[in-house]
């Protein structure tokens, strides 16, 4: 079970003066169960890349294969395959349209051809995942909610499709720190219970380091690195800095402490790990 991109190239506005190649020969395979973070500058091609994961954009060259089906085709198999990939766009709250929260979340499952019973189950499940109480919010208009709640309704609308792969384009953009944490907690929870693949596009190396078990670095339309975050940071930090991508703050801090003579062991990918390593080095007893 995987999404495979094979030698995918994509050019915007082909044949006009605005022609611009956004992806150049990208090959990658994303398996069910992974948490993949995609990092790159604005304009690096990462948004174009994720829009290929469910064949929203059709490649000029190359193939998109979802669960062994060519997803660019017109067959019902291809359509079904595309529907297994849920896609949460940037600022997804801007796509809400229905009169009630429930109706909006049910839009996707209904299009997908679920029975009404199944739709109801999926809507309730999805609302539970994003932490919106069904009895309180189901009948409300989505436009009367706060910005953060609207975002959660929009995410629920995609979760309710019961996708095998969930792609999120900057799910935490514009949120305050507490809401950012919450969004990621919900995504991780979803990953844990449904064993689906999660693909997160982010600008934040810290988020990538903390949550992902695989990192794709995209630069100038090409896949620059593909691997475990800790390995990429360790081996390619100089090159990453060169293309203007910074290391995670916590990683930088760890490096700084090491440079100052502190003997830190292990991979330092989040605050907890750093605190643990410092306690070990200093012989303090770690409270947790």
């Amino acid at each position, binding site marked *: 079970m995987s999404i495979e991109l094979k030698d995918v190239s994509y050019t915007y506005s082909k044949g006009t003066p605005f022609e611009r190649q956004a992806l150049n020969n990208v090959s990658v395979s994303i398996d069910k169960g992974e948490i993949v973070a995609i990092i790159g*500058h*604005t*304009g690096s091609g990462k948004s174009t890349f994720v829009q290929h994961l469910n064949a929203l954009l059709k490649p000029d060259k190359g193939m998109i294969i979802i669960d062994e089906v060519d997803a660019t085709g017109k067959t019902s198999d291809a359509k079904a395959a595309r529907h297994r990939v849920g896609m949460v766009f940037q600022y997804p709250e801007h796509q809400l349209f229905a009169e009630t929260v429930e109706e909006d979340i049910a839009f996707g499952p209904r299009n997908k051809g679920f029975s009404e019973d199944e739709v109801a189950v999926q809507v309730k499940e999805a609302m539970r995942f994003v932490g919106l109480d069904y009895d309180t919010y189901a009948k409300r208009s989505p436009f*009367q909610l*706060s*910005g*953060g709640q609207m975002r959660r309704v929009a995410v629920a609308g995609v979760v309710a499709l019961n996708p095998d792969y969930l792609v999120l384009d900057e799910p935490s*953009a*514009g*949120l*305050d*720190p*507490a*809401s950012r944490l919450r969004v990621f907690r919900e995504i991780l929870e979803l990953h844990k219970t449904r064993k689906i693949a999660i693909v997160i596009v982010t*600008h*934040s190396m810290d988020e990538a380091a903390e949550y992902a078990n695989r990192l794709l670095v995209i630069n100038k339309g090409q896949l620059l690195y593909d691997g475990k975050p800790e390995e990429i940071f360790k081996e390619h930090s100089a090159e990453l800095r060169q293309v*203007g991508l*910074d290391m995670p*703050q*916590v990683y*930088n*801090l760890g490096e*700084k*402490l090491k440079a*100052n*003579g*502190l003997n830190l062991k292990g991979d330092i990918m989040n*605050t907890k790990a*750093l*605190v643990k390593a*410092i*306690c070990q080095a*200093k012989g*303090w*007893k*770690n*409270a947790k």
Partner: protein
Amino acid sequence: MIKIENLKHYYKDIDGNEVKALDGVSLSIAEGEFVAVIGANGSGKSTLARHLNGLLVPTEGKVTVNDMDTMDEDRTWDIRQSVGMVFQNPDNQIVAAIVEEDVAFGMENIGVPSAEIRPRVDKALAAVGMSDYAKHAPHLLSGGQKQRVAIAGILGLEPKCIVLDEPTAMLDPQGRQEIVATVKSLNKEKNITIVYITHYMEEALQADRVVVMGAGKIQFMGTPKEVFCRVEELEKLGLEAPIAAKVASELRKCGAKLPKDIITEEELAKALCQ
């Protein structure tokens, strides 16, 4: 420069309940100061910002800008000229379809003579490093560039103070750096008073003073050092402390004896590696 005395702002929401967006805020901002206001969504920080140039007026209390009361309708335009405002969404505040036309917009509104507008536009664009883009269409610029155009549009009015309401919330890291650097240089080189609203603590670190908002009130304020070492209080308000402060706070829980005011990586390294 700006005095806020016991400011309250109430409004009714859709269900008819009274919402206390601001509930007794007092703050005074000196000329040339760089003040950061941080707070979670819904803490009242944007409502506060909109009181500073009379876009909103107090339900109770008083806001004065250079001794002009924002309730005084005769002074509204003088106040808006001396307190410029940059908003969160870079797309929704640019009026004209060409960068330089947009920068000129404010000046045209207050009736600056035509011959004077041109040099002032050029100066404003130079101050934000956007001179090369004078003839560009705004929708083709990056988010950071759009925000810099918005800042230039305000600079043309030669304001004493600029209020930025979450100017970086919709930008990528590079755009955020551009804005922080621009704002800092305006503060240092042109002595423009800055009120900078954000929920990114890295940005608030650049300020002279940090005001922490929560539930329509000022929770506490002080220098970045004084504010950001209060890790747990910040987290309770839905905010975040700098990583070094967070780590130091965790280490203290493990029994480490560290100075109370660690907020930078250097300070942490020094404390740990002596």
